[in-house]
């Protein structure tokens, strides 16, 4: 299962739970709430769109509101934005801080080395990737031993890196100790909450004035030398922004986080409930495969033949009947899907069992369609072509091509031919792919205006 990305405000709640300071503020869902929170925080405030997409700042999703008169306009404007295809549904209203230096601190999984990795940089800006390409030495990486306690793991490995960052920023021991504590807390959070990423970008040194100071210390325990700017102004460290991803396979032991899940569309949720792995793509050929590799290889073959897959759907090598039925329900009712390719190699499952599952799944799909027809006679009368809403899509099933090979596949194909003669059953993936690509083209031509289709 894929990871679950958290919104910034959710990530900041997690940081606060382990004593990592964040700006004062709160999340709001409408303009009226925004004005209330802004007044409570004290102007000027920063208004930040809460979306799970990159490029928020460039898209105008982060703005300063100087006073009561501005907040309604700023909040209203950001609430109406679409950022990276995501509608903005909530805002984070926070105090505006004077940032003296930006630091980058993250813990992520290094899957190549099979262990967590701490990343640190004195350049905490948004252009970190370009900075690192130009000057690789600007990024310090510290592998963390997964079998050690976070305090030991971080102090063991990260001393050199934090010392360098503290020295280059002219802060010395104060920042070094603060960063060590902070890195420890970030890694502890990463480990205890089954994260695959906790990224403070940036972690900022800000002016420690009376409004935000409140005597809070990094990680709640830091008591080393204080942090000061060269002009003598007291400074403190806090996380201005944070990105957290949680391992989707660990949600059984992170139930409070599972309640935050929001980053999926309706089909993805239905698929997940049926333990089917599903990803939306942007084409018009539905794909169901037994096993991730086979499904991926099918999507590749469709692309190579000039078609485009509408999705990636893996029912697992076992290809059980309930998963086949669930996958059919998710993919075949997608109004974008002009034709559906089911590619099963029965290597783990038995081919005849797979065929039985397919027949049962198709039966359930027909039953759902019949029920929808009975319930919606008027909607049916208005049905025209395939440009239909999701609910009505249940009624118009796309043509299906099944490739079934492997163990006991001959009996399986025979059963499909008898029970479901309208389904095209083939033996090789190449044949199946050619068929669906041709069918998708034909379907596209059929829906074009007559003059155009005569041309094509």
């Amino acid at each position, binding site marked *: 299962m894929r990871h679950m990305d958290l919104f910034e405000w959710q990530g900041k709640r997690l940081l606060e739970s382990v004593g990592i300071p964040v700006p004062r503020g709160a999340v709001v869902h409408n303009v009226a709430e925004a004005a209330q929170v802004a007044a409570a925080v004290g102007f000027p405030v920063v208004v930040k769109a809460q979306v*799970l997409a990159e490029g928020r700042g460039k898209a105008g999703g982060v703005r300063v509101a100087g006073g009561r008169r501005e907040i309604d306009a700023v909040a209203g404007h950001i609430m109406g934005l679409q950022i990276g295809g995501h509608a903005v549904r909530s805002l984070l209203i926070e105090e505006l801080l004077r940032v003296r230096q930006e630091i980058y601190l993250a813990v992520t999984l290094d899957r*190549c080395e099979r262990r967590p990795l701490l990343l640190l940089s004195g350049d905490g800006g948004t252009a970190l990737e370009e900075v690192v390409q130009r000057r690789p030495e600007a990024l310090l990486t510290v592998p963390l031993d997964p079998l050690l306690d976070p305090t030991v793991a971080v102090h063991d490995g990260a001393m050199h890196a934090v010392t360098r960052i503290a020295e280059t920023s002219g802060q010395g021991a104060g920042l070094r100790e603060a960063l060590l504590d902070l890195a420890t807390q970030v890694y502890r959070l990463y480990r205890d909450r089954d994260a695959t990423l906790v990224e403070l970008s940036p972690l900022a040194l800000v002016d420690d004035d009376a409004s935000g100071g409140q005597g809070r210390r990094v990680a709640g325990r830091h008591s080393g030398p204080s942090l000061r700017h060269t002009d003598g102004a007291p400074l403190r460290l806090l996380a201005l922004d944070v990105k957290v991803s949680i391992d989707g396979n*660990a949600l059984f032991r992170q139930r409070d986080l599972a309640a935050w899940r929001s980053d999926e569309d309706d089909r993805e949720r239905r698929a997940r409930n049926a333990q089917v792995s599903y990803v939306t793509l942007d084409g018009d050929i539905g794909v169901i495969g037994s096993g991730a*590799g086979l499904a*991926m290889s099918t999507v590749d073959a469709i692309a*190579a033949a000039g078609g485009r897959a509408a999705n990636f759907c893996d029912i697992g090598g076992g290809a059980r009947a309930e998963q086949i039925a669930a996958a059919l329900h998710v993919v075949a009712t997608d109004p974008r899907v002009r034709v559906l390719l089911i590619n099963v*190699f029965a290597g*783990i499952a038995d081919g005849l069992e797979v065929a039985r599952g397919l027949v049962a799944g198709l039966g359930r799909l027909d039953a759902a369609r019949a029920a929808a027809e009975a319930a919606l006679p008027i909607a049916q009368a208005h049905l025209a072509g395939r440009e239909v809403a999701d609910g009505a899509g249940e009624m118009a099933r796309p043509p299906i091509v099944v490739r079934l090979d492997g163990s006991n596949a001959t009996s399986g194909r025979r059963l499909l031919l008898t029970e479901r003669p309208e389904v095209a059953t083939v033996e090789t*993936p190449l044949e199946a792919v050619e068929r669906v690509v041709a069918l998708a083209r034909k379907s596209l031509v059929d829906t074009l205006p007559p003059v155009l289709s005569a041309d094509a």
Partner: protein
Amino acid sequence: VAILVDERSRVLVQGLEGREGAHHVERMLAAGTRVVAGVQPGKAGEDIQNVPIFDTVFDAVAQTAADVWLAFVPARFAKTAALEAADAGVRLLVLATQGIPVRDAVELVAELDRYGMDEMRRRGLGQRSGNGRRAGFERPVARNASERVPRVRLVGPGSPGLVTPGRCHVGFMAADMFRAGRVGVVSRSGTLTCEIAARLTRAGIGQSTCIGLGGDPVCGLGFVECLELFEADEQTDAVMLVGEIGGDDEQRAAYAAEQMTKPVVAYVAGFAAPPAKRLGHAGAIVSGGAGTAGAKAEAFAAAGIVVARRPDEIPGLVAAALSARAAGDGALGPA
């Protein structure tokens, strides 16, 4: 001898329960596998398909000398179960369970690495190596495959199993896909392993051993070690490697394959996969673009490894690799 499993392997199964478990045990027995024990807490004294059941892995290993552990235990117990099996003395762990939390997989491979390192230190083997890309990743690396014998090997999580055709079938892959022969198959995908083995079999090309590594982000056994084992195996003449998007194991494999005397044919799935949706900078910085199918295919091509574009090209390419080798150990074969 084939690699990892053969007719002498004594297989212990855990978490294979009920009708379906019995069905898989029956299939393994029918394929000639010596399934010697099952583990189901509270069921000691019973049997599945006449294979005795024990309460714990310790009891099972003590009484049957099992040396291969095949498990389909629930994801949340998988790490503990695998460590128990290692503690009980089993040296080949095949973990079929899917959906294990990454943290558990990371901790499990780290624990098992430590078993291997302790053993190698005791025997004075291994050398410090600059194998890791970043400083701090030094760990003893055996100079050749035979040095690694005492290591605890983990195949998976998410492994469909290992098959040495006609001699030992561990896992869930149907026996009729395979046929004994001289091509090693190693794959990160489950069904594709079966499909590709079946294509080879139909083309008259048998297999020495087929290994499904599992497709999780963090797995135990990887391509490089499998290539080393195949290179050292007298019964393997060529290797078919099936990669997937994600990680950099294929790139490491390309480097290892370049050092081999035996030909390797590669296939990578996922060219049309959209770039992973990823928050933040860290992912891009750490992987540096190594995870795409294109980057992997390029790495193989740069190492002089033949890359199949589609699964149906595989039998032809493997046959060509075998005949080139037969004609003069590859080097003298047709360009």
